[in-house]
């Protein structure tokens, strides 16, 4: 058996069971709606979802535009929140007393359900994307902050001792030991932070927005367009997986030494 044949067989062995499972699941769903076991007002139906996707993703670009807003909001809050968190983490590691002082306030803020801030942020930053970014930032910030601190605290002390005996300046210590040593841990925070940024943005959009997938979802839900709601849930899940996939790729490239 050649290598290609073997690969093809393996591929078939993993894909075929899923294809069969999904085929049966969607088929039953469709059948159940058609014979009246399920109410399409509440559950939608696969053919309806497909035609909704066809109409809004392929025939017109309307959903792509909404997705653009959501993606823009997610990445903006991720980037802003992460940078702020990494800088704060660095400051805390350099000034442990500051961290100890601020800790109760940060814990209290972090304990608050962030969605509860939406009304406030909408008042401050408006109905547009800025208020969604603000929510995303508050979520991303805390996750990345705690992983940054953990990463920088958990350095291999041998590296630190060696570097000190070499007479490293603080900037050298940071660039050669602290940052590269903390990156693996920071990355696990970044991966989670990105998903939470999306959560914050979509959540904000659902509550009140002009654009975005969350806003579309809320509108479709309120007009009982279940096919549209299901289609959007599918899109959000694919979007989430894509975003994590990108993160994994970047991580692999950056941490190829692991």
């Amino acid at each position, binding site marked *: 058996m050649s290598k290609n044949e073997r690969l093809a067989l393996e591929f078939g062995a993993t894909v075929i069971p899923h294809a069969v499972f999904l085929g049966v699941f969607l088929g039953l769903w469709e059948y159940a709606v058609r014979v009246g076991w399920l109410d399409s007002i509440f559950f939608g139906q696969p053919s309806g979802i497909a035609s909704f996707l066809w109409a809004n993703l392929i025939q017109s670009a309307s959903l792509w535009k909404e997705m653009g807003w959501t993606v823009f909001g997610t990445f903006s809050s991720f980037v802003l929140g992460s940078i702020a968190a990494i800088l704060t983490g660095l400051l805390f590691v350099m000034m442990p007393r500051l961290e100890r002082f601020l800790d109760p306030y940060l814990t209290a803020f972090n304990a608050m359900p962030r969605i509860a801030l939406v009304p406030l942020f909408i008042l401050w930053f408006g109905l547009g994307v800025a208020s969604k970014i603000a929510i995303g930032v508050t979520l991303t910030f805390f996750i990345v902050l705690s992983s940054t601190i953990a990463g920088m605290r958990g350095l*291999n002390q*041998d*590296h630190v*001792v*060696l*570097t*000190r*005996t*070499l*007479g*490293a300046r603080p900037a*050298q210590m940071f660039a*050669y*030991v602290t940052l*590269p040593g903390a990156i693996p841990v920071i990355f696990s925070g970044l991966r989670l932070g990105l998903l939470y940024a999306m959560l914050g943005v979509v959540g904000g959009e659902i509550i009140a927005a002009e654009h975005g997938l969350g806003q579309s979802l809320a509108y479709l839900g309120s007009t009982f367009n279940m096919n549209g709601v299901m289609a959007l849930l599918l899109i959000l899940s694919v979007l989430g997986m894509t975003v994590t996939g990108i993160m994994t790729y970047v991580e692999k490239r950056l*941490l190829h*030494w*692991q």
Partner: protein
Amino acid sequence: MAMVQRLQFPGETASIKSVGKPMSEDVAIEVQDLEVSFGNRKVIDGVSLQIPKEQLVSIVGPSGCGKTTVLNLLAGLVDVPRKGKLLVGNKSPRLGDDRIAYMLARDSLLPWRTTLQNACYGMQIRGVPAKLREERARDLLGRVGLAGFENVYPKQLSHGMRQRCALARTFALDAPYLLMDEPFGALDAQTKLTLEELLVELWQQERRTVMFITHDLAEAIAISDRVIVMSARPGRIAGNFAIDLPRPRNIRSLQKEPHFHELYAQIWGVLEDGWRHSDV
């Protein structure tokens, strides 16, 4: 620079016979009447020792005898209240002194750097120009037997190979004083022998002063010009022995040498005494 009569060749017998003090201008590292207390517990009590220039001197002693503390004080790594005098090349210890190269028990290679980049690391921190440090690192990697592994990351190297790379990083520094804290303590017996041979070989080529901390007496005798024994709690000097085994030595075949065993028995007696009299 004053040369010391150090290298012994086959046929010659003794190195430095007397246990007395070497001439002061030949002293590279000196500790005098060192006393260190942690809280009100005295951990080092009146330690004095001298390491002549370009010699390889081992400090042996049970754990807790303060040998590592002495080394770390000389490296400027710990700053504890102390009495007595410490001199490295006629100067007080200073952290980051570029006349000192320090080597730890674990390889402490940076996992995100390749072998070559790790061998360059010390020189990079100390500001050696890029071209020069690469040249020097490649040369040393060749000498420690890592030619061909320059672009490999530490996780792909065995323990022995990693410690070879650490040796290359240490010797690549243009530092006359090498402070080593049980550098081969974590290796298996066979790898340890190989690394000991390698260390002695590099040291003979490079003519550095080495202070070598170990708890392995056989290792200390095999590689050293002199073995200083410390006893525990509080740490004191229990003995100071010249090792008059001729150089170059074949470390692997020392086990067959009666004089090696005589030295071992003699020094072991003192080490054991130190345990018996320690107030543990």
